[in-house]
């Protein structure tokens, strides 16, 4: 394990175990991720990668163990509280907000971030301010739309702000979901197979966005089946198999690890 | 005090037996289609009104009862074919509203056909009331309890020992796999409506001699039926039976001790408590995502 000063650690996963009935999905998984690094999470199908993301983001509560962000315990908090504290994620199947346009989808993220962590949100963004159409609120909403457009300008979705999300192609959905996640300026970003279903151009776009996020000091956790791409972008890699951590290290170390090769080949032969 | 309490319990057992039949219909449809059929109580209304109005023309009660159950089954089939099947692409809430529409439409149809006057139906057998530990049970109560026994035994045997029953259980456990084995889910959905309607109609026929039959009886019966179904566990037939009896007894005891107005209210308070504390019901398996 790479030694690191505790202050540099953003996300701390400690002894996480997750059981569903008799099935063990995760067994004593622990690692740390620092801001400004991409941590690849590898493993064959059923290794527990998505369960790990669910535990970190608060979708599921672990049977044992805990997750902390900068020393603040996340375990036991709801998904939206975890997000407000700085951990956001994407999903294997992109979750679209049907009924909203691309710009509005981003504005939802920006508005959530605006009130982020402040519970309850201030009166200026509550039901009354919105319903009464208060000028401050309207101005703030207009500003959100402008910021949404500015964020879109840097992506493949530039000039698509008015498109209803229903009309997006699959790759565009992935890119919108990623843009949404980045809009809340997270400390930790969990990406669940962000490359699957994308064409080569889109894959490059997403990898560029991941590198840009790293440069911004975000800790990116990346689950990805495309092992080549994952190893090319990751700074460190954690390998799971049957819910256990079987290897951790730099991409080069992991790629050469016979245990890892065995796990992958073994599973492919099964 | 104790004597009247015991009498309430006996009355509750009889009411509960009726609720159990209607609850069984809910469970059948829910198991096969994942749908809560808000129109379930109207099948009982159709059964009760058909039997009572035919008997009023001089037809022997048992013959009228038989035709009434067939009429209810026919209504069930029509409900499925005209309202549920055409909307099979719809999502959960839309289907809820559709069965709600069925409930309203059937009650209105009942009003057209039979008017607002109540119909009486003679008890199926004469004979003196039976006394159990000082409590009184009318002969009709034995018919009701006997019907429960037959219906639930038949359902048990069907699901346990017939090919079709096993196939339904497989389909419920794992729909995608079942359809790859060629199990026709849509046919099952059709037959689940017919069976649920027939059983509900039978419940209506049985209760008519006790409470009289009116076009609006289906609402209260249907509501009680699904309180019983939720109480027992929406996916459990034994749960429907247990839930029916528990609800019937609680209602009659509460009604007797507080006031009859609370008979219905107490049932719904229980429903809300169960939904929040134990959504899978007393005997249901771990909650299916509803």
């Amino acid at each position, binding site marked *: 394990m790479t030694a690191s000063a505790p202050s540099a650690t953003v996300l701390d996963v400690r002894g996480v175990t997750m059981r569903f009935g008799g099935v063990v999905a995760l067994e004593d998984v622990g690692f740390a991720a620092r801001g400004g690094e991409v941590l690849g999470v590898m493993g064959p199908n059923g290794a527990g990668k998505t369960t790990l993301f669910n535990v970190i983001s608060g979708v599921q509560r672990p049977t044992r163990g805990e997750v902390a962000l900068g020393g603040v315990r996340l375990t036991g908090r709801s998904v*939206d509280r975890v997000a407000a504290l700085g951990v956001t994620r994407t999903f294997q199947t992109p979750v679209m907000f049907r*009924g909203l346009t691309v710009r509005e989808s981003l504005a939802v993220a920006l508005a959530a971030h605006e009130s982020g962590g402040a519970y309850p949100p201030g009166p200026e963004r*509550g039901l009354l301010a919105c*319903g009464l159409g208060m000028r401050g609120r309207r101005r703030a909403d207009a500003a959100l739309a402008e910021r949404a457009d500015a964020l879109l300008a840097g992506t493949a979705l530039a000039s698509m702000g008015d498109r209803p999300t229903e009309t997006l192609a699959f790759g565009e959905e992935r890119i919108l979901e990623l843009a949404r996640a980045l809009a*809340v300026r997270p400390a930790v970003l969990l990406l669940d197979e962000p490359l699957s279903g994308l064409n080569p151009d889109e894959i490059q776009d997403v990898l560029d966005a991941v590198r840009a996020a790293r440069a911004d000091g975000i800790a990116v956790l990346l689950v990805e089946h495309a092992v080549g791409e994952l190893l090319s972008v990751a700074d460190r890699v954690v390998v799971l198999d049957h819910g256990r951590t079987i290897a951790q290290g730099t991409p080069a170390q992991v790629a050469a690890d016979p245990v890892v090769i065995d796990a992958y080949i073994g599973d492919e032969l099964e | 005090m104790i004597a009247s309490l015991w009498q309430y319990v006996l009355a509750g057992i009889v009411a509960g037996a009726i609720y159990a039949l209607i609850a069984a219909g809910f469970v059948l449809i829910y198991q096969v289609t994942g749908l809560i059929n808000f129109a379930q109580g109207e099948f009982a209304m159709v059964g009760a009104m058909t039997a009572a109005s035919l008997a009023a023309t001089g037809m022997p009660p048992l013959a009228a009862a038989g035709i009434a159950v067939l009429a209810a089954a026919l209504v069930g089939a029509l409900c499925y074919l005209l309202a549920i099947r055409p*909307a099979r692409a*719809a999502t959960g809430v839309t289907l809820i509203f559709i069965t709600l529409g069925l409930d309203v439409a059937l009650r209105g149809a009942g*009003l057209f056909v039979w008017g607002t006057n109540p119909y009486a139906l003679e008890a199926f057998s004469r004979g003196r009331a039976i006394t159990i530990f000082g409590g009184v049970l009318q002969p009709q109560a034995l018919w009701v309890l006997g019907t429960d026994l037959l219906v639930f035994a038949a359902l048990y045997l069907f699901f346990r020992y017939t090919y079709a029953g096993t196939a339904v259980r497989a389909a419920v456990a794992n729909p995608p796999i079942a359809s790859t084995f060629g199990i026709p889910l849509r046919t099952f959905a059709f037959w689940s409506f017919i069976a649920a309607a027939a059983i509900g109609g039978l419940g209506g026929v049985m209760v008519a001699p006790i409470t009289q039959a009116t076009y609006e009886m289906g609402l209260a019966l249907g509501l009680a039926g699904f309180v019983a179904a939720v109480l027992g566990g929406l996916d459990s037939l034994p749960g429907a039976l247990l839930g029916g009896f528990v609800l019937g007894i609680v209602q009659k005891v509460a009604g007797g001790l507080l006031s009859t107005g609370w008979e219905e209210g107490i049932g*719904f308070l229980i*429903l809300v408590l169960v939904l929040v504390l134990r959504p899978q019901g007393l005997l249901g398996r771990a909650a299916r995502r509803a």
Partner: protein
Amino acid sequence: MKLSSQAYGPIGLLLAALVAAVVWVLPSSYTGLLTLIGLYGLVALGLNLFMGYAGQVSLGQAAFVGVGAYTSAALAVKTGLTPWLGTVAGALAAALVAYVLSFVALRLRENLLALATLALGIVINVVFNEWEFIGGSSGLKDIPGFALGGYVFDQRAYAVLAWLLFALGIWFAGNLVRSSFGRALIAISAGELGAQALGVDGERLRRQTFVLSAIYAGVAGAVYASVFSYIDPTSFGFVLSVNFVLMSVIGGIRSLWGALVGAAFVVVLGQVLRTVVPAVLPNARGEFQQFFFGVILIAILIWLPKGITSRLSEARRA
């Protein structure tokens, strides 16, 4: 000047002004129908926010109408409080009841939420029936009307009041759905986990919307009590809750004007049926129009699941 259908407040006021004009030439029975359309439209508007935008379902909305009606009526009858303040009290009471119930009901979804709201609606109705202080099953009568200065409201004034309240309601709702609040609501109902992962507090949004829908219902109920000067528990039963769902669905649950269209449809069709059907079928009595309502509800859901207004706006776009 071109008014877009999004100009909710101005158009609402325009309609209220139109109502204020026509009530002088309209026979008084039609005036009563206009009042009902305005009040039911207000309830349906709240329901559209909760069902169409927040993606939930309520089969107990009539109970909130009842809470508003009973609060205002009981205060007026027992303490002589003016219905103006009674309406405020009715709205607050409905909001309070909804707030408390939300902790029970809003933990559930779809099927089970439908059941829970239905059950809670009926329990509230049982309370109306059993609470002798508010008249029990015989209800409250001789409920005082609204007055402004020395002027006591007649049917015409109530029609205008109802439509003014609707205008206020749709103005507020219109602002809401086009604000960040409304967008967050749509996001939560379309992709709950995805929105939560961005920090959107769905539970809070749903609760607020539920309470708001109860306020709309409570206001309508309070005015209803004074318009008819008599209420009893049967006025606020399950059948009325179903009719509110019908209004929402007919107009389209994600359309604010749809609430008014749905309310008008149900009120007018009910009146037509009550006039026409007995002429054809002399035996028809009671609430037989419900049969047609049920059939229409099913037909709309099968062929026009987004409601009548969706077809209108599609036609306009084409």
